[in-house]
């Protein structure tokens, strides 16, 4: 049974790397956000796995905080995307370069 924990940690590492790759790779801002959620999910998996392995409730508390932050972030971010889309008719992250120019 103990390979469940090691497997979960390995899976968390792989999903986190995939999400980090996607954040830089994807062009659509909503797709970037989806990859961000993937990274948060990987963190949750690691936290819950370690909390359960140690029999300690702290990991679960942090799991709740991560989910709450994800909810707040999704609300604010998607509201921003709606605003940007109304202004510019696209939400391509690569074309939002007003601050760079």
């Amino acid at each position, binding site marked *: *049974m103990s390979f469940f924990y090691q497997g979960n940690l390995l899976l968390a*590492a792989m999903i986190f790397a995939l999400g980090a790759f996607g954040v830089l790779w994807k062009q659509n801002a909503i797709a970037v956000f989806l990859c961000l959620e*993937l990274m948060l999910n990987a963190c949750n998996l690691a936290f819950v*796995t370690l*909390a*359960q392995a140690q029999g300690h409730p702290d990991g679960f*508390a942090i799991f709740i905080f991560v989910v709450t932050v994800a909810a707040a972030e999704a609300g604010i971010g*998607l509201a*921003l995307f709606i605003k940007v889309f109304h202004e510019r008719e696209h939400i391509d992250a690569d074309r939002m370069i007003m601050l760079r120019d």
Partner: protein
Amino acid sequence: MAELTYSLFFVLALVSAVLVVFSRHPVHGALFLILTMVALAGLFILINAQWAAVFQILVYAGAIMVLFLFVIMLLNIGRAGELPVSTRSIRRAGVVFGLALAVQAAALMARFGAEAAFPETPPPLIPIGRIALALLTRYLYAFELTSVMLLVAVIGALALAGRRSSADGPPEPQPPGGRP
């Protein structure tokens, strides 16, 4: 039997996570992300963390992803077009960064997993009362700040996406193209 179920959920989570990153359309990405969350909930149940699985399905897949799908529907965005040349370097950096992170994290996790003594049988279910106790004692300030953060997020989302009323300042000049 448990090993077989575990392998099933493991592969399902990994494959759907890959498909989140490589799907062309955001709706497909969001649906595969929901599949990833369901698979992760299965993994939570297999290590006897049923409570986290319920939370994952209810809040994450049920609430946050519905918000995503709703916004995708509202904006009606199609598939991505071709990239301008100037951003290719960012994508190359993404490949390098992702690969480096994967190798690093896998090595770290493997080493840590080999050294840490994980119990052979899953420890008993952590009662939800102990989690509540941790939340309301050790993490009390963080817990209270979280409620303030949620309030700020709600107000911010309303202020950003809400319809502009005539009361808050002069109206913005219309862009020359006009709005559809």
